[in-house]
């Protein structure tokens, strides 16, 4: 019995080894075949841009079948960190690179090159049954920094306010902090209130707001669905209240809008250059508009 037992084991090992090596050879062959006539560009970063980047990647691959662009999200900080560490070809960001990040990249031998690839309005959203229709920037700042904690202070129902924000690695978070919570004042040290919920995705924010009448949050214009209500925002106390639309973002009347960026770890060359050039084509910029973002010239 023992002898047959070991023999079985040996046979299994031998078969296993043969199968594995065969697989390995097969995979190698496939990879080699792929290497000859196709290229994969890696593209990572902002979750705001990820749907747009995916749509671009698909359209580009349809036109140029030998180039595929692999797109992943994770947040602007994630994409920029990957570029600094040299693991992606193109980083997506919904904020500009910080000086510190540029320095880090230079230390690693990369000189980042910036492209503004689209514009985005950030919509402030509440539950559909919330009677509040409009807010000023100052009120938004007070809400998210925790100075106003009940809807009744804004003329709404007697309900506690629950603030929702994206995680700190999101460019939208940083942008909202700088231009809404701190109202563009660089020396302002106001923070999001510690009770602000930090949700890992745009979808998380939309789904919580659609079911919680206490909640208020923000999301890129492209992510707003019918399940939530968008609030009109006024830049000053006596000004007009403006709804975020493609038109108001282009003519810059809506106060919470920003540029979306792509960063390359050096001057664009070869396939990367072709891709970036294509992004500024009419075809690519019409995809921008389809997804609820705002095209650039």
């Amino acid at each position: 019995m023992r002898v047959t037992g070991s023999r079985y084991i040996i046979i299994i090992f031998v078969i296993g080894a043969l199968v594995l090596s065969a697989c390995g050879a097969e995979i190698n062959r496939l990879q080699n075949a792929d290497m000859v006539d196709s290229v994969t560009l890696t593209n990572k970063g902002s979750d705001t841009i990820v749907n747009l980047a995916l749509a671009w990647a698909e359209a580009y691959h349809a036109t140029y079948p030998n180039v595929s662009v692999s797109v992943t999200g994770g947040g602007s900080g994630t994409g920029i960190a990957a570029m600094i560490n040299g693991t992606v070809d193109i980083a997506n960001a919904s904020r500009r690179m910080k000086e510190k990040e540029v320095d880090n990249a230079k230390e690693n031998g990369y000189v980042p090159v910036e492209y503004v690839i689209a514009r985005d309005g950030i919509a402030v959203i509440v539950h559909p049954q919330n009677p509040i229709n409009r807010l000023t920037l100052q009120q938004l700042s007070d809400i998210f920094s925790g100075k106003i904690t009940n809807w009744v202070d804004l003329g709404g129902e007697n309900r506690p306010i629950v603030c929702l924000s994206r995680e700190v690695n999101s460019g939208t978070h940083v942008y909202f902090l700088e231009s809404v919570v701190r109202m563009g004042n660089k020396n302002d040290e106001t923070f999001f209130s510690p009770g602000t919920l930090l949700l890992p995705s745009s979808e998380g924010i939309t789904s919580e707001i659609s079911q919680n009448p206490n909640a208020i949050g923000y999301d890129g214009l492209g992510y707003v669905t019918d399940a939530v209500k968008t609030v009109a925002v006024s830049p000053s106390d006596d000004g007009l209240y403006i709804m975020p639309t493609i038109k108001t973002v282009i003519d810059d009347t809506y106060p919470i809008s920003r540029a979306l960026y792509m960063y390359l770890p050096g001057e664009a060359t070869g396939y990367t250059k072709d891709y970036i050039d294509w992004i500024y084509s009419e075809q690519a910029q019409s995809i921008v508009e389809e997804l609820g973002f705002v095209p650039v010239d």
Partner: protein
Amino acid sequence: MNSKMIFNTKYRQLLEFVVEAIIRISGYSAVVFVGLIFLFLMQESLPTFGEIQARDLWSQRWYPIENYFGVLPLLSGSLIITLGAALIAIPFGLMTAIFIAEIAPLWLREILKPLVEVLGGVPSVVLGFLGITVLAPLVREELYLPTGLTAFTGAVLLAGMAIPTIVSVAEDALDAVPKAYRDAALALGATRWQTIWRVTLPAARSGVLTATMLGIGRAIGETMTVMMVTGNAPQMASGLGSLFISLRTMTATIAAEMGEVANGSLHYHVLFSIGLILFLISLTVNITASAVLFRARKRTERLLS
């Protein structure tokens, strides 16, 4: 070439040696891996202490993008959520184990035990999804809370993940108590409950303790579920009342922020320090558990001899 030649003595000795070596290496490897992980964590987290002071780490604001690295909110968040999960999971899990091992008829037992183990195999992201869509709105409406994304929601789901572990291990331990113990207790006129509480459960205590520790270990290390349902607000937790506000755990912080950091930055080192804290916590839990077990075993040996 026949089989007699292949399996001669020398070959067998060689085979014996190889198999023995493989087994020995696997045995030692666990220790080596733990050691290496610890060394790696130390190496990546120690630079933290050169760059910021311990006082800054031991503070109450966590806002890494502006260099506030107070880990207290995260530490207290993890502890309170784990405590909440343990308070739910331990009684519930032990009662289930007792029911399955001692009370349920054989046919029911054969259905229940595999079902509980299947529950243990549900991926955490699926539980998290259920938490967001079903449990969180329920918690908000039934408990009149501002939001359902609270530590309590996380604790309930973590308890759900710890219970299968607790039930499975504790049930095995109860099952291993010799039938003679129960017969003796019943013969002395003890009721069924007295038998369970005074005889079976104490006899199985080491297994029950292991079950509890494994369950808690699962709860404190869980990441995905808590990241999805606890709201991740870095607030200080103080006392059990904090279960009903949003909290941020250490695991969720590492998961949410590790992708963002540049290798070698201060934030990167601080995240590794948090990993080190988690490692030390689970090490302490395990060492305490084995120390308690060891003491208990020695006492039993004394009593029996």
